[in-house]
């Protein structure tokens, strides 16, 4: 097991109360695996990354039953140990909006060199050579290492960030919305390049891919997790999650997502909006918007339990899943939950 997360929580104290941005998330990523984490804005996926990468402010209260990378307890590590042992060499990050992640007054190549020097014992010349080969690896001409960020297009900057994340040959790359805001043909090339890179490099690369775009996740991931309001609702191997989902929220997302291959399919939105993350919701976070909710749903905590081999869901009514799957494709099912609220 590469990364093992069990019952991870990240809470913020605010004036109005405790914001439970991440509230008991459990999943794991194996060697050479792409785990896709999907969720809408405010579901806590970015806080999860920040917690993992130690970019979360000190005011946040982070706890977990287990947060381990190859068996090493990440929570027990000091920031210094984390920087020396894990960051860049084991886990690297491709942040959201690569547009703003590069320093505008330094050459792109130099920024990669600096990152290499800070985390390894390479000489400056070796690091510069490494930067050039990384650029070629992501399909950028080697001469471009001498360019400044403003001379790059959005897609080129994103590729430069991917090159940088590969600099010290990490085992896990965390990607936060890597193609959001890019044009579809540019996105296509980046996704293809990523798939190529995973095949080429000697050390197997795992990716934690975070995006709201379910079609990108569907194409790239081996396993998928669906997050909602700070909690993981469901996780399963990709095909299973799409073909046999258990959680009503996953069923709802599937209905709402358009596909160019099925232009005549009626899209169905999920009525309502996500709950406030402040305060205690004893039951299911999705209960208020769920057409299949019963009164227990709003006060019985849904355990994240294994419903099929390798397939987990946080729903207390998974024994009724056949009924859910049958009715979820009907627009009236979802409209009825609207009138209930």
């Amino acid at each position: 097991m590469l990364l093992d997360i069990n019952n991870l929580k990240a809470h913020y104290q605010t004036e109005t109360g405790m914001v439970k941005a991440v509230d008991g998330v459990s999943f794991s990523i194996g060697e050479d695996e792409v785990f896709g984490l999907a969720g809408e804005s405010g579901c806590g996926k970015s806080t999860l990354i920040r917690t993992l990468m130690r970019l979360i402010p000190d005011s946040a209260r982070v706890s977990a039953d287990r947060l381990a990378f190859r068996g090493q307890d990440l929570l027990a590590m000091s920031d210094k140990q984390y920087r020396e042992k894990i960051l860049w060499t084991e886990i690297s990050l491709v942040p959201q909006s690569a547009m703003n992640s590069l320093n505008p007054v330094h050459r792109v190549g130099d920024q990669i060199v600096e990152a290499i020097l800070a985390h390894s014992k390479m000489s400056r010349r070796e690091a510069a050579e490494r930067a050039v080969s990384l650029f070629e690896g992501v399909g950028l001409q080697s001469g471009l290492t001498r360019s400044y960020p403003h001379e790059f297009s959005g897609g080129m900057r994103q590729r430069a960030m991917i090159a940088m994340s590969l600099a010290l040959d990490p085992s896990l790359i965390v990607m936060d919305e890597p193609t959001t805001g890019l044009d579809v043909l540019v996105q296509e090339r980046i996704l293809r390049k990523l798939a190529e890179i995973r095949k080429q490099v000697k050390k197997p690369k795992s990716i934690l891919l975070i995006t709201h775009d379910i079609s990108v996740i569907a194409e790239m991931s081996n396993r998928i997790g669906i997050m909602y309001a700070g909690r993981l609702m469901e996780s399963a191997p990709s095909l299973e999650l799409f073909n046999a989902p258990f959680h009503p929220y996953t069923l709802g997302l599937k209905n709402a997502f358009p596909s160019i291959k099925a232009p005549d399919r009626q899209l169905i939105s999920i009525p309502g909006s996500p709950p406030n993350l402040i305060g205690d919701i004893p039951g299911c976070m999705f209960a208020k918007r769920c057409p299949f909710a019963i009164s227990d749903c709003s006060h019985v905590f849904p355990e994240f339990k294994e419903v099929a081999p390798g397939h987990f869901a946080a729903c207390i009514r998974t024994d009724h899943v056949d009924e859910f799957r049958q009715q979820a494709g009907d627009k009236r099912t979802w409209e009825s939950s609207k009138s209930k609220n």
Partner: protein
Amino acid sequence: MGILEVEKLRKHFYLNPGFLSRVVSKKKPSVIKAVDGVSFGIEAGEILGIAGESGCGKSTTCSLITKLLEPTAGAIRYKGQDISQLGKKDLKAYRQQVQIIFQDPYESLNPRFTTFDLVAEPLRAMGIAGKREIQEKVFSTLELAGLKPEEYQNRYPHQLSGGERQRVGIASALVLGPELVIADEPVSMLDVSIRAGILDLIRDLSVRLRFTCIFVSHDLSILSNISERLMIMYLGKVMELGTTRDVIAEPLHPYAQALISAVPIPDPSYKRPRPNIKGEVSQPIDPPPGCRFHSRCPQGIMEECGTVDPPLNEAKPGHFVACHLY
């Protein structure tokens, strides 16, 4: 005849070089051909989708139609009348009949206006006085947009969710009873689970209120779902235009083929053919002669591709393409 006819529309922006390069190297101003000879018509009641990557001119085209920009050349005719020739009174009527739904409901609503005022503002600006009349119109339009007037009228934008904000945006676009609505990426800022509701709303209202709609989006999966006809633009030119079904199922232009096959499919068992396109979209600055796409085109280049700009021809009934292959 359609409700709107756009003919050989051009919008060029000039980039003036700095003083020094003008004097020393005698540099001439460069031209950005944001929209360069675009012609299309739209039938009353239909939803026309415009797709393309950033810089293709889809937003500029909309700004020209709504008269937020003046064209360099070409004509836009609304119900047969050239809109550049409209007098003051007719222009006001035109503005009333052509309305915009904006992309970002977080930026486009005045934070100091309540929902009621946001929707009433166009009525007031058009001088439709009468307190009672305004209240009636605002309430009925909010109702149409799926917001309960009593519950929402006094709320400020920050008290609304993204989907609710966009509904307010839609209500204020529709309150004047427009005949042509231009929706510029109306759902791109919204979460997936509420997108479908906004798309449904626009589609339902276009039928009920009988307005025509130009729906601009970079997302072909959304356009495949909502638009009846689809126009694909690239660097200021129309590359392909036809019914959405034809364009998506059988794209003719090599660019349209690449663009459509690059759209990810939300189904892990589907293996999509990968498009083979070189290079990146350049900017439409001083474009070379010939087809705008020829340097990236995967179909071997014929001689004319680099010299003759291909006109938009009807390759099949109702299906137009600008490519020398057809």
